[in-house]
């Protein structure tokens, strides 16, 4: 199955990116210091962005870097600094009950097994007509064409969420 002759640079890059992403994702859930977790999360976001670039989704990759690695991670780090009330080294502890951790690990492992089995057994309808090298134009046509209602709804969702977040974080008048 493993054929060294068919092993190209593309594959090597994918394996490198996938390794970095999975390691960073593990870091997010395993570090005891939540600052390290947040920095690891940024690395995982950048790894995902690299995967998007590799999949010819340049626009999504740039959005991922701007929105996730830029804005959301800054937001998360600000929130961490605002709510830090114990030493950083024990700010991201796991649940104290071993049985709970064991059950969670089992659930995650079973989910992974099921997903891997489904991926392995499914006959994927690969191929299709080849698309352009740069799919940003296609995306723009869909966004302002067939899916314009969903696009506008997403814009309203963002507006409402931002207003709601400001009101929630500002607190009530009785404080």
């Amino acid at each position, binding site marked *: 199955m493993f054929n060294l002759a068919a092993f190209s640079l593309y594959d090597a890059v994918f394996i490198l990116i996938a390794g970095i992403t999975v390691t960073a*994702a593990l870091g997010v859930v395993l570090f005891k210091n939540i600052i390290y977790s947040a920095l690891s999360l940024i690395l995982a976001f950048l790894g995902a962005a690299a995967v998007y670039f590799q999949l010819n989704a340049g626009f999504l990759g740039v959005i991922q870097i701007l929105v996730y690695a830029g804005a959301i991670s800054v937001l998360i780090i600000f*929130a961490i600094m605002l709510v830090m009330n114990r030493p950083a080294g024990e700010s991201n502890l796991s649940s104290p009950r071993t049985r709970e951790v064991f059950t969670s690990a089992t659930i995650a492992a079973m989910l992974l097994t099921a997903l891997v089995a489904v991926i392995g057994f499914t006959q994927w309808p690969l191929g299709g007509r080849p698309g352009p090298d740069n*799919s940003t134009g296609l995306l723009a046509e869909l966004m302002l064409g067939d899916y314009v209602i969903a696009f506008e709804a997403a814009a309203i969702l963002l507006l409402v*969420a931002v207003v709601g977040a400001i009101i929630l974080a500002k607190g009530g008048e009785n404080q």
Partner: protein
Amino acid sequence: MIGLPHYLLLGSIVFCIGAFGVLTRRNAVAVLMSVELMLNAVNINFIAANKYIAPDTAVGQLFSVFIIVVAAAEIAVGLALVISIYRQRRSVDLHDFNLLKW
């Protein structure tokens, strides 16, 4: 050699790591971070399926854009809630959030 199953496998692994984090972390911010990991894993799957199954359209990428929008809204509201609860309870430990329990 690398094809759609490998990308889907990467997405599944990251998704399960995120699910494990959601179930075990005690810090509410860490739970939100794990949810972001899970949403990112879904995005990887969408974009990989788009590239390998229907490369002449961009519907998978479009749905990734919507997931990113919803994730940004979710993290903004979620962190505002965490800060608001912290102001009341002086804690971000999920075991202390028991006002709705009976």
